[in-house]
């Protein structure tokens, strides 16, 4: 390969990686927000993303919605599902040992996966093309309209999330609870309501990711959340779990690394690269890119 085509390949994979990575980022945000508040790795989060894709599928095929109403429908549906899951599965375990809650989360994950198989059959479904798939050429680089929609949607959603967390009352309450739960309770903050809101927001973002992936790959199935769920978890750890900008950056980096490995080495090494990153991060910087060393309270 000469320098020109190498550069071309690099830029092309960068484009692919950023659009894939912005979906990881959307899922990783939910992981990180829930961890920030409950110190719980919600292993059912990838399945919420799957649920969101199915809600989007129902909205576009059965209800005939166009893209924007469909993604909103999926986000609202998943937000409600997230609230219900927290209320039924996690809240009774609030004071249980951490490992018990983790196992509960794995149970919820199976329930969603196999529950969806029961309802929708294990067959993959073809996600309808909700808008024309145009292809744009920028010199030798190829960008399709789906990649643009994914990136723009992800940026808009992350901007809205940042606004909510930084400037609204519930957002400030979330940060307070995540920093010091007891002090937040002494301010009159209703912890249960903040936790519900966190699950709602995180689930809605994952659902948006699910719909965008459905549009991108045209296909959804009940187990589609497993691998992206774990990858988004890696992204959250990479950025620093519990840190919102960390999840965004971690997602994009992971997407770009995967695209580069697929483009320059082989796409069969893609998953190995993702988990290789996890191992390296855990070995050398366990707190993640944005993480600080945690000071133990005396």
């Amino acid at each position, binding site marked *: 390969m000469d320098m020109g085509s190498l550069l071309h390949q690099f830029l092309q994979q960068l484009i692919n990686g950023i659009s894939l990575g912005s979906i990881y980022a959307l899922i990783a945000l939910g992981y990180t927000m829930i961890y920030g508040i409950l110190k719980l790795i919600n292993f059912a989060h990838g399945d919420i993303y799957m649920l969101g894709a199915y809600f989007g599928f129902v909205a576009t095929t059965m209800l005939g919605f166009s893209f924007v109403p469909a993604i909103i429908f999926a986000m609202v549906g998943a937000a409600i599902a997230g609230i219900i899951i927290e209320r039924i599965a996690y809240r009774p375990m609030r004071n249980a040992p951490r490992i018990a809650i983790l196992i509960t989360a794995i149970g919820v994950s199976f329930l969603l996966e196999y529950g969806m198989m029961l309802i929708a059959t294990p067959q993959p479904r073809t996600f309808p093309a909700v808008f024309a798939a145009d292809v744009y050429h920028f010199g030798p680089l190829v960008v399709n309209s789906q990649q643009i929609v994914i990136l723009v949607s992800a940026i808009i959603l992350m901007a809205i999330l940042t606004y909510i967390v930084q400037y609204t009352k519930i957002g400030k309450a979330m*940060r307070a609870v995540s920093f010091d739960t007891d002090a937040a309770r*002494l301010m009159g903050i209703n912890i249960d309501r903040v936790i519900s809101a966190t699950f709602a927001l995180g689930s809605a973002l994952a659902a948006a990711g699910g719909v965008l992936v459905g549009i991108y790959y045209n296909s959804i199935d009940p187990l589609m959340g497993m691998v992206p769920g774990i990858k988004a978890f890696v992204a959250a750890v990479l950025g620093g779990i519990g840190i919102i900008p960390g999840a965004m950056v971690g997602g994009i980096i992971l997407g770009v690394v995967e695209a580069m490995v697929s483009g320059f080495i082989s796409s069969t090494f893609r998953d190995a690269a993702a988990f290789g990153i996890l191992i390296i991060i855990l070995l050398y910087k366990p707190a993640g890119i944005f993480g600080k060393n945690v000071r133990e309270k005396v």
Partner: protein
Amino acid sequence: MLKVSNLDVYYGAIHAIKDVSLEVPDGEIVTLIGSNGAGKSTTLHTISGLIKPKNGSIVFEDTDITGMAAHKIVGMGLCQVPEGRHVFANMTVMENLELGAYLRSDKAGIAEDMDKIFQKFPRLLERKTQVAGTLSGGEQQMLAMGRALMSRPRLLLLDEPSMGLAPLLVKEIFNIIKEINESGTTVLLVEQNANMALSIADKAYVLETGRIALAGTAQELASSEAVRKAYLGG
């Protein structure tokens, strides 16, 4: 205003608070003194609803608040400044104060109260856009008190406000507590610094290994032989 009767609190199998009864009359400063580990903070946490008691009752302004959720108790006008300040170190001074007013929705009143707090604590005004974690210990104590006042409490619980502060600052903080009380807020003050606490309080209780050992007016206790020996350094 506050009446705690026959309170028993357990941490697992440990009986931390044993049959504690105390009363805080409207408008007064009542102090709860005692050595480290006597159960002072546990008593306050139980009153605030962070810990549920095994037995006993807590009545605040004729309402039984025993076992009520912490956020509801704040809504009733009872707010605590916890030991070790517990400011939200990753947020600005302004945001901390706003969180103090979390249950209120009267924007004009909140802005007015924030001005009052900046008048009371001019150093907070200078640092209002600064992240709370960068403040000194004394400033954090002021912020924690200001934050609690933002909820317009009728009863303020203060847990070790002098902890880790230089003597000059301790004096300043205690003057402010007196001011807060004079402007109409009843205070329940927990302190290891018995000297300072007794100097501003009306009534006092001495807590020893989870039990009320002595009770009386602050003057009585300050002159009591037992208290002077154990808590006032002779």
